[in-house]
């Protein structure tokens, strides 16, 4: 078991290196240099040249890359030109918001998807199944940003049930009020994200349940007189649960991608919105840092899922 | 000169394990076998599943990567891909597969399936090609309306005859028949086998007939090789194998042929149990310390068995065979 995990971790190393090289080269390819804007625009070109020289910007790219990596390991991601503060501190302030939103969306997704999947499988071919399948079909194909825009319009503006901007109300004074307000702010985006993100889990669980229903061990249990409620709870659901838990890691990729849309629509101050703003302001140090962080989060998510899957399914381990 | 000479053929599959996924061991699917196939004969290769007989067949037709050893055809070693290409080898050596449904591309019409080897090897004109396909269908007893149908529209026996027609299309010298009838009903088996025999007579084709069913092999083959755990345990004529089996494995296989005569049921069962008892008690006599078969020893001009020389001679004289 630990061998699989260790090997999987070893495979990750070249991937992380490749990712960092790619991110670094992209940063290099972006127009402008890190000093544009941060120093006096009337500065002497010779002085800029001197600055570039002492900051090592005329070195060959691999040497610059090495310096960048060394800085990275010291937790130094450079300074944001737009906000005039270290990127690490800037992102620290936003990361919590994004992860909190992603986490809550995931919880809600599972809360919707698990009962729906089991219910659909259990009543395969009957009316509830048809309705649930229609629901997954509709939610699967509509682009999520359209749903978010329609959602904020109807529930945020027209009905006025939910806040339409920010992550916490400025009126919140006490700790309880702050938590409540934060919760209130992420409720609509995470509800919409969850309602429209169930399709994979529902479909997987449904087909698992249907397969299990026709399998010999369930038939045996049934013929022994085990009540069908217990069959679903102890035999079918428990067997399908771990592979479904493994989806969580993979879905991180989707949630992070989605965070860019969600945070833009709801003006929610997380990493996604920071990224969109930084692109507009060409704030390259921030962009580079965010791409790297998102890449590593993706990697960790996939790693988690792979490990869970290899525990559940020995066939994966052999590879 | 024999049509095909197989010399010390080995096909090993690596087993990877450990942390670095290095090759630590290998599965010896075929482990050093040697035999010849003569022109115009049907050579039987018999063994239980997993004995390596299919792998041998696939090596002969060029589908399997050979680990070592050689297969000579026209003096050329066809285990090398270059030699196969130079000789147009598969024009002369074709194959019939066990699963007739899986061996015919479900999205292709029968015409295209049978014409496939023709298109690659013979480059006929369109009309000539169609005529040849029609003649082939006729030879295996199918009507012209099969031409534009798909494989799933035929029964198992008909499909296997289509497979035979495809294998015969380029008028080959040798056809590897890998359990050609074991997936078919008993009644249809005879029909397909008779077509194969008829084609052999008319076109002078050799078969390498791979089967686990000694009953069918007896009907088809002049010479027979028995395979067990990747090695040959006994080679001989039909007479040698069926009437004077020497190796315990051959005896067990023969004992497993079902007895159709109900009156002899009890006797048959007794003889089966006797063979099984010998097998249980004398395993170490017939296999070496690693449980593998011994090298072959000749006991008569046609008959060889995988046993230590002394035991082989002793058994052979018990059976009353003439010493070589």
């Amino acid at each position: 078991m630990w061998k699989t995990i260790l090997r999987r971790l070893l495979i990750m190393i070249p991937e992380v290196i490749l990712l960092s090289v790619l991110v670094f080269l992209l940063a290099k390819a972006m127009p402008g240099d890190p000093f544009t804007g941060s120093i006096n625009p009337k500065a002497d070109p010779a002085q800029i040249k001197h600055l570039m020289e002492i900051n090592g910007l005329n070195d060959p790219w691999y040497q610059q890359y090495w310096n960048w990596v060394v800085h990275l390991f010291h937790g130094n991601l450079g300074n944001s030109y737009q906000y005039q503060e270290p990127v690490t501190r800037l992102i620290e302030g936003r990361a919590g918001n994004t992860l909190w939103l992603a986490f809550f969306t995931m919880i809600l997704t599972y809360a919707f998807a698990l009962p729906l999947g089991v219910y659909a499988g259990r009543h395969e071919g009957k009316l509830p199944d048809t309705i649930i399948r229609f629901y997954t079909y509709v939610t699967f194909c509509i682009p999520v940003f359209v749903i978010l825009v329609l959602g904020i319009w109807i529930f945020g503006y027209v009905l006025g049930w939910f806040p339409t901007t920010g992550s916490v109300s400025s009126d919140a004074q006490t700790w309880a009020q702050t938590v409540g307000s934060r919760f209130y702010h992420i409720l609509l985006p995470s509800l919409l994200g969850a309602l429209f993100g169930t399709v994979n889990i529902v479909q997987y669980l449904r087909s698992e349940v249907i397969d299990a229903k026709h399998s010999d061990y369930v038939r045996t249990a049934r013929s022994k007189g085990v009540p069908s409620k217990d069959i679903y709870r102890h035999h079918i659901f428990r067997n399908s649960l771990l592979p479904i838990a493994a989806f969580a890691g993979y879905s991180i990729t989707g949630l992070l991608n989605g965070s860019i849309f969600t945070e833009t629509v709801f003006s929610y101050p997380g990493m996604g919105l920071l990224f969109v703003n930084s692109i507009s302001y060409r704030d390259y140090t921030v962009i580079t840092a965010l791409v790297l962080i998102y890449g590593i989060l993706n990697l960790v998510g996939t790693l988690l899922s792979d490990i869970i899957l290899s525990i559940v399914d020995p066939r994966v381990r052999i590879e | 000169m024999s049509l095909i000479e197989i010399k010390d053929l080995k096909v090993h599959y690596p087993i990877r394990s450990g942390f670095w996924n290095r090759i630590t061991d290998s599965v010896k699917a075929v482990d050093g076998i040697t035999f010849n196939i003569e022109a115009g004969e049907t050579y039987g290769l018999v063994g239980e599943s997993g004995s390596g007989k299919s792998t041998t067949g696939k090596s002969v037709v060029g589908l399997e990567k050979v680990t070592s050893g050689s297969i000579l055809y026209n003096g050329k070693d066809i285990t090398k891909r270059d030699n196969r290409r130079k000789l147009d080898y598969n024009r002369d050596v074709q194959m019939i597969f066990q699963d007739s449904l899986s061996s015919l591309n479900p999205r292709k019409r029968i015409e295209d399936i049978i014409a496939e080897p023709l298109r690659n090897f013979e480059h006929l004109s369109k009309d000539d090609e169609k005529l040849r396909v029609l003649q082939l269908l006729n030879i295996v007893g199918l009507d012209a309306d099969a031409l534009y149908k798909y494989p799933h529209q035929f029964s198992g026996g008909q499909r296997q005859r289509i497979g035979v027609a495809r294998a015969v299309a380029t008028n080959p010298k040798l056809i590897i028949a890998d359990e050609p009838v074991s997936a078919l009903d008993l009644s249809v088996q005879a029909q397909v086998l008779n077509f194969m025999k008829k084609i052999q007579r008319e076109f002078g084709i050799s078969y390498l007939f791979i089967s686990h069913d000694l009953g069918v092999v007896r009907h088809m083959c002049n010479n027979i090789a028995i395979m067990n755990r990747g090695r040959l345990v006994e080679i001989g004529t039909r007479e040698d194998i069926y009437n004077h089996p020497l190796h315990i494995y051959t005896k067990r296989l023969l004992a497993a042929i079902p007895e159709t005569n109900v009156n002899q049921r009890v006797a048959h069962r007794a003889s089966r149990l006797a063979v099984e008892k010998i097998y249980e008690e004398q395993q170490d006599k017939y296999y070496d310390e690693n449980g593998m078969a011994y090298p072959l020893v000749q006991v008569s001009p046609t008959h060889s068995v995988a046993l230590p020389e002394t035991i082989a001679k002793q058994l052979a004289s018990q059976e009353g065979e003439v010493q070589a």
Partner: protein
Amino acid sequence: MAENFEKHSDISAADLARLNQEAQAEATPSTAKIIWNEFKADKPAMAALFIIVGFIAFVMIGALFINTPKMMETNIMDYFDKPFTTDFWLGADSGGRSVAKQLIVGSRNSIGIAIGLTVISSTVGICWGLISGYFGGYIDWGMQRVYDFTMMLPMLMMIIVLVTIIPHYNAVSLTLIFSLFYWEGTSRLIRSRTLAETQKDYVAASKTSGTSNWKIIFQGIMPNISSLIIIDTTLSFAENIGVETGLSYLGFGLPTQTPSLGTMIANANDPTNITLYWWTWLPAALEIIVLCLSISYIGQVLRRAADASQRQGAAD
């Protein structure tokens, strides 16, 4: 050799034409026919098909008659004109530009890019999966590592960064950038089916018949997974409509002077626009929903046609 066959078969060259005709009469219906029967049996699917084909034809042709630069000129007099008037069927936006005309040109651009992206990414994905699955071994291993790596990249961010790096980007370069990332799902799906398909004996039979690897892959195996390819391509098309429009919505898709369904929905980013001037963005949002639903409904029907046991159309 031909005489050999002549001798043992009672069919001669003279019978060819007659037998051919007999065979033709017994021929089985083609896949296209089966799919068409399926559509004829399912009225909503037929409707979806007509909506999609009719709509795409309408915007493609309609856009030809619209002078885009002129349409995109700011016209203060028509600032936020209300919809359902003779001048502006769907009203005008903050620049006094006709929403209806923008919708037509925008649909053309968005659908065009979605089609281009689907064609490129599906082709790449199908070839990738087929080659990886067929050859196996080291080739497969290498291709799978590339796949794993690209899966790990933060796709949307990379696309946005690439868009900002490329100096003069336009619809074509945008489509190519998208294609770098959207072949993956297809490739994995195709690979796993190809792996199973390659194990079947008909592939071995083709090898012994002297057929080359490429011919086996594209003429032997590919037709056998064609239903999967058709379904996957249809569903990718529905998905890809969301790709460009989503990016244009964020402001990183098509340039501002090129209307797209996404840039129109971006009007909703303004708190006043979203409530007061709903007609500037709502039609585009609804259109995307209808398009995506119709296209993937067609995908569902194709899936049913591929699975003989679920067909609703008459057998033959």
